[in-house]
């Protein structure tokens, strides 16, 4: 590897001063107008395989300038040797250059610190000052915003008494967007996602593009989002609607308006590196050498150009000479742009590297995407050379703010102009009674790392906002919380479930056109005031403290907030069901069996059972808390994929009775055949026929079961949170 680097360096030295070229050409090359580059050098490591690993402390990082920006340019350390002994043992994770190119904001951790903080470097004299942030929390990924502000991501949560969300899958405390003045005043955190947000980058229209981890049930990927500088008006940019090139899209940077270069990769094992993609969100326009895509930006309208063929976008090891890219900075906006990239050769995959006792070796290259050639600039084999940028002034975009409505009293207003306007689902006229809004939370509230075996997140039903005659609806909800919504029919069952979380800030009004309307079209509504505003927004706990957003003993169906399986669901089964579906199987249902296909041995036999008892000894050997009940297992069923991979076969009479997020499609709900709940209960049934075996269920009974399904078939809710008791 070192021999190879040396020969590359020798070859690079033959290139002309101030640019990249061959044979004595007068062409200055893409970097001809660049005096110097700023590059971050971090000691090599192999522990940031997960794309949301935001802390990896290894002292010895430095910011360097390379002038001219060639392999034989002069390398000068600009931070943090001159800053004094306070900055010894520093690790720097990322940085950004100010608009006037006179200062740099960077995220760093010193040996004496317990977390990463924000620092400001004055390039002229190398002096550094710390930006005042909470020393007990992490602050990473800073960028300059217009108006003397910095945007960053942090695990700080500003809601008093609340813990930061812990993504169910990532297990790490999530990081969220925030901003602060350069002088350390007026720090504010944005509304929270249930999982991570990372890698913000400023676009020329003043919006910020960043990567958001979307984790709700089946959805588990990193997509690009837009947000205004005040962290309002979150909007999907790329990936959520299925056109993403890979599971995760990272480190997006604007090439030209509506056009971004990003890293396409898998969630883990790839050291945050992957393929280079050129995302064109709008209508592509060519003006000389500049290609942009500013108009009609939407994912539906987007095109993706793969700039680095052969580089894997999953987490398989990359091949020699192929490698993976860590980051990219566009130098021009040609159809095949020139990019400053960080790239490592070889198998950039954490397991293979660990087996070989190696780390990825990211170096800086000028990438000619037309010829797919990398021209070396800097590669220190002991360091990661990353995030190269020209040290040049740039035009600051306008300060882009959003409206705030003081009349909301700190609540967030959400709604749609016409919920029937959807690009994702075909609704029948009159099908929708209302929109159910559900709050999401994770195990940080005290749950034992799981809400149930369906692996959905915690849910609390904030209520159902009726849809008005013109299709509009609105609700006032608590600010800063992740929510997702479902359209519901008059029986209270979901007809369509939004597959991602979103959130709003205090005083923010988020009125969508429809139920995920076509982003490239204008939503038309009849002139005049929307019916929902005439009627007033539905109140949904907008000013209620988090700990009070639960109801252990709802007196009616519409009072149900969370659904605690062992209390609320089991109460229905105990009164209405176990006489037939108890331990004695009075209903006479045949058991289903699970057989080892290799040996033919019977592994387990299970008969439908709705008691709240613990699973029998052969299935659950431990007594005491933590084991889910017979009724829960009967409804949720075992994992079919796990059975298949385990070489096990289940008998044909096996059934899953409750489907997460889909009460309407659940066997249990269809069998019981709920009656009308909204706007007022009637005896009309949802499905043909009557109920089940003459069993009489109340509206509250039905809605308890419907919510149990539509909110993920969870065992735990706030109402039975084991963390609420004293021990």
């Amino acid at each position, binding site marked *: 590897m070192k021999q190879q680097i040396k020969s590359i360096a020798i070859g690079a030295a033959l290139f002309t001063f101030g640019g990249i070229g061959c044979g004595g050409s007068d062409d200055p090359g893409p970097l001809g107008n660049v005096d110097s580059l700023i590059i971050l050098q971090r000691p090599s490591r192999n522990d940031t*395989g997960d794309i949301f690993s935001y802390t990896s402390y290894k002292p010895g990082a430095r910011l360097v300038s390379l002038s001219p920006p060639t392999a034989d340019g002069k390398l000068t350390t600009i931070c943090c040797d001159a800053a004094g002994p306070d900055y010894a043992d520093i690790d720097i994770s990322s940085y950004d250059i100010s608009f006037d190119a006179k200062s740099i904001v960077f995220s760093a951790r010193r040996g*004496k610190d317990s977390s990463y903080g924000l620092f400001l470097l004055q390039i002229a004299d190398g002096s550094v000052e710390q930006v005042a942030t909470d020393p007990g929390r992490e602050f990473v990924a800073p960028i300059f915003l217009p108006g003397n502000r910095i945007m960053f991501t942090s695990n700080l949560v500003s809601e008093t008494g609340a813990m930061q969300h812990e993504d169910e899958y990532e297990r790490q405390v999530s990081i969220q967007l925030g901003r602060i003045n350069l002088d350390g005043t007026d720090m504010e955190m944005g509304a929270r996602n249930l999982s991570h947000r990372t890698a913000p980058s400023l676009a020329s229209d003043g919006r910020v593009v960043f990567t958001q981890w979307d984790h709700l049930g089946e959805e588990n990927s990193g997509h690009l989002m837009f947000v205004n500088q005040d962290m309002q008006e979150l909007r999907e940019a790329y990936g959520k609607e299925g056109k993403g090139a890979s599971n995760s899209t990272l480190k997006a940077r604007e090439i030209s308006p509506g056009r971004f270069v990003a890293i396409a990769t898998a969630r883990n*094992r790839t050291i945050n590196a992957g393929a280079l993609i050129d995302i064109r969100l709008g209508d592509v326009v060519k003006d000389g050498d500049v290609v942009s895509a500013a108009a009609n930006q939407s994912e539906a309208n987007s095109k993706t150009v793969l700039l680095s063929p052969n580089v894997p976008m999953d987490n398989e090891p990359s091949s020699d000479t192929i490698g993976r890219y860590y980051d990219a900075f566009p130098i021009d906006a040609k159809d095949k742009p020139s990019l400053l990239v960080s790239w490592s050769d070889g198998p950039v995959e954490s397991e293979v590297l660990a087996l070989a006792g190696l780390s990825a070796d990211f170096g800086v290259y000028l990438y000619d995407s037309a010829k797919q050639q990398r021209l070396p600039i800097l590669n220190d084999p002991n360091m990661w050379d990353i995030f190269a940028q020209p040290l040049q002034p740039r035009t600051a975009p306008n300060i882009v703010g959003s409206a705030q409505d003081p009349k909301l009293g700190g609540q967030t207003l959400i709604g749609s102009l016409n919920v029937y306007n959807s690009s994702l689902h075909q609704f029948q006229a009159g099908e929708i009674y209302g929109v159910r809004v559900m709050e999401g939370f994770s195990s940080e509230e005290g*749950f034992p*790392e799981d809400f149930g075996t*369906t692996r959905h997140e915690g849910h609390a039903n904030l209520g159902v906002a009726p849809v008005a005659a013109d299709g509009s609806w609105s609700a006032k909800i608590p600010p800063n919380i992740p929510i997702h919504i479902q359209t519901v029919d008059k029986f209270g069952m979901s007809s369509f479930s939004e597959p991602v979380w979103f959130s709003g800030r205090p005083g923010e009004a988020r009125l969508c056109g429809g139920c995920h309307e076509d982003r490239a079209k204008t939503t038309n509504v009849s002139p005049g005031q929307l019916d929902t505003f005439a009627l007033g927004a539905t109140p949904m706990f907008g000013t209620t403290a988090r700990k009070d957003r639960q109801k252990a003993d709802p007196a009616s169906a519409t009072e149900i907030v969370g659904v605690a399986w062992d209390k609320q669901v089991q109460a229905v089964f105990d009164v209405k069901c176990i006489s037939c579906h108890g331990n004695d199987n009075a209903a006479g249902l045949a058991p289903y069996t699970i057989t080892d296909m290799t040996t033919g041995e019977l592994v387990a036999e299970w008969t439908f059972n709705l008691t709240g008892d613990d699973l029998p000894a052969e299935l659950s050997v431990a007594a005491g808390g933590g084991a889910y009940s017979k009724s829960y297992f009967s409804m949720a069923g075992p*994992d079919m994929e796990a059975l298949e991979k385990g070489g096990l076969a289940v008998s044909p009479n096996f059934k899953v009775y409750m489907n*997460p997020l889909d009460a309407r499609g659940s066997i249990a709900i269809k069998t019981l055949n709920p009656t009308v709940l909204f706007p007022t209960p009637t005896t009309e049934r949802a499905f043909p026929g009557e109920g089940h075996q003459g069993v009489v269920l109340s509206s509250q009974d039905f809605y308890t079961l419907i919510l149990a399904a539509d909110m993920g078939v969870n065992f735990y809710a706030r109402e039975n949170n084991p963390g609420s008791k004293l021990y």
Partner: protein
Amino acid sequence: MKNIGIKLAAVAALALVTPTMAHAGKGGSAAAIQSAVKSTSVDAIIAEIERAEGLLCEDCVQTLTNLTEDSRYEVRQVAAWWFAKRPALKDMMVAQFSSDLPRGTTVKVRNAADFLGTTRSYATLPQLRAAIHRSDLGVEARVALVRAVKAMGHISGNEVLTTAMADSDPGVRAAAAAAWRDIRDQASAQPVVALLADSDAGVRARAAGVVGGMREQTGRAALEALVAGDTDSTVRRNAAWALGQLGNEASRAVLLRATTDSSSLVRGVARASLASLH
């Protein structure tokens, strides 16, 4: 080494896994986990265990059991997370690990604490409270007990933290101070105020961050003294920040002087804190 009945455990695991929803939880295998373990890459081990989140895998159980006793905390943590998704198996492991707390070695107590904390086994809090009072445990175990309480975030663990705040080891004291803030419904940082006068600079720095983060007004005088005269710039910085969080106008004079502190860490923070006083 833990050795639960494999067959029984596999059947229990089978029973309590339901339709896997998380796409990223699919595709794992025992072979992939074992390969990752052989590589020694923590990153690969974590990735493969996460992929096996919902996997029915008899062969995985012993491998994962062994990993709950790995020397690396990140590996122990993800192994415990895997068991947390399998309540019956988890309960078996909890019973075995909790029996290590009263008499186990330092390493056994460390492993037990990390498992119980990650799986939020609240019922073991009484045993964790008893264990922190053992006089024969090494630092590693005491730090792990604090870490367990932090992971649980439960107020019934406060006694572990207050005991650890008086520990002979500064690392344990600092960890306990930091953990105090991450307990749900924690009403006050009063117990942490005393650590502002700790003999160790790292402890003082952590304590200042907690007192400020929780806006504990009873710590103001001690914080002002730290800003004015602590020999450690990190301590002065954290204390200056904390005074900004407390926001008391009485701190103006000391913060003004801090704007000309010899350390650039302190100067900018002091200026920002001045703007927060009222």
